[in-house]
């Protein structure tokens, strides 16, 4: 019985440690003992959404999440296996997925993504906070309506549905939030015509997952580590683009750099995020029509363009006009 007793003690100890870790906020506390987030939780929002925003960096769960995204005329769908412990997350992909073998581990300081085929780990800025900051920013906007109604069960759990719409009543997004934990079990985003733009849904979820201390570590022997900036430099050298990128010191961090074919043109795409905003910088060796861009851009999205050295630069973002223009100036526009 002795070894069994020892094992039980260890388990209890681990359980107590985990419970303590769960109860103790990982972020700094403000003067009033409230937890500080990187986002502001607006006072005038329904309780379920308030719970979700407050719990976002404390909640623990594991689950299977199906993500669907509209891309041109197609829809892409993939499945992720998610384990979350407050601000830490691990994502893997099921065996049938083309992404199987990749692993993503994120903590408040960085996001690491492992590509087994290349034995490479891409290290970039954390993204989890950005998405929730953006949600908090949207619901805090003037004229945005946020309603809560009872929702049906999602992944076997009871939910409240939070609907966010603009001042004209156009539905922007819907969130299905579990009543007690504040876990966002399902989310749908709509475009200005009311078409579903992107969504995720947990098909299975567990609010008391077993978490191993090494779950949020990602190291591989002989692995090559690379950052989005390295990738950008590589593309610039290979494709002969100009080295125009956001300078250090802006709150916006490069999350992704890639070549993309858009309307038969080869375009260097840089995607930045910070303070809940998303900005893309496009560089291409052809002319663009600024007035047309301005007319196409949806409400809240600004576009700033300039030309230099035979290339066109298009800066698109959800920033105030003056701020985007200032960014453009700093980039040489």
């Amino acid at each position, binding site marked *: 019985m002795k070894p069994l007793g020892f094992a039980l003690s260890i388990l209890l100890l681990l359980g107590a440690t985990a419970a303590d870790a769960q109860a103790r906020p990982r972020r700094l506390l403000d003067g009033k003992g409230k937890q500080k987030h990187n986002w502001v939780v607006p006072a005038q929002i329904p309780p379920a959404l308030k719970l979700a925003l407050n719990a976002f960096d404390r909640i623990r769960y594991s689950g299977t*999440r199906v993500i669907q*995204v509209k*891309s*041109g005329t*197609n829809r*892409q769908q993939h499945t*992720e296996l*998610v384990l979350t412990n407050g601000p830490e997350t691990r994502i893997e992909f099921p065996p049938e997925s*083309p*992404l199987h073998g*990749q692993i993503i581990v*994120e903590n408040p300081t960085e*996001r690491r*993504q492992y590509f087994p085929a290349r034995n490479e780990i891409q290290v970039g800025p954390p*993204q*989890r906070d950005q*998405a*929730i900051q953006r*949600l908090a920013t949207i619901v805090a906007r003037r004229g945005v309506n946020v309603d809560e109604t009872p929702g049906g069960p999602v992944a076997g759990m009871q939910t409240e549905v939070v609907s966010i719409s603009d001042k004209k009543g156009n539905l922007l997004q819907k969130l299905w939030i579990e009543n007690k934990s504040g876990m966002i079990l399902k989310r749908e*985003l709509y*475009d200005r015509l009311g078409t579903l*733009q*992107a*969504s*995720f849904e947990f098909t299975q979820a567990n609010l008391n997952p077993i978490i191993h201390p090494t779950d949020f570590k990602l190291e591989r022997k002989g692995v090559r580590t690379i950052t989005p900036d390295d*990738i950008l430099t590589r593309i610039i050298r290979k*494709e002969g683009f100009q080295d125009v990128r956001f300078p250090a010191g802006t709150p916006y961090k490069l999350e*992704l750099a*890639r*070549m*993309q*074919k*858009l*309307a038969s043109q*080869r*375009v260097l*795409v840089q*995607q930045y*995020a910070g303070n809940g905003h998303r900005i893309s910088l*496009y560089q291409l*060796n*052809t*002319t*663009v*029509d600024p*007035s*047309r*861009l*301005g007319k196409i851009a949806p409400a809240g*999205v600004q*576009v*700033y*363009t*300039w*030309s230099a050295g*035979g290339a066109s630069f298009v800066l*698109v973002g*959800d920033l105030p*006009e003056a701020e985007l*223009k200032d960014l453009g100036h700093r980039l040489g526009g």
Partner: protein
Amino acid sequence: MRNDFEMKREILEEELNSPEQLHVRELVRALPDETLSLTWRSGLNARLQSEMVRRRKLNLFGWVWKPAVGLALAGALAVAFIIPPKGSAPARGGELEKALVTHYVESTASWEVAGDGVSMGEVKDAVNQHTISVDPEQEDVGAL
């Protein structure tokens, strides 16, 4: 009614500084400022850039024409009509502009729902490697 153009200078000066006239000046001054959009500024940038290119061509032309007018003319004609200037191919019917904005909107929506998960482009890369056909207009060249 003092609408006389021949009004004496002193009287005019006095009238312009009368409380009624100064009141109107304050009202005009208090009108809200006008602001131009970022689209307007982008348009101006594009026009200034093409003006700059045009000037450079003209300058170059000016240097060359003295020693060899005929050769320069032929060269300029070649530049203008035969050799398409690099980076100035016109966009086709707004498709490119639409594709750029759509890319931003779609990738932002994907980023919002995926959070710390994989991006739309990464899924495309993985799918492409599994030889599933994609819309050629939306072909993703990848992160190299």
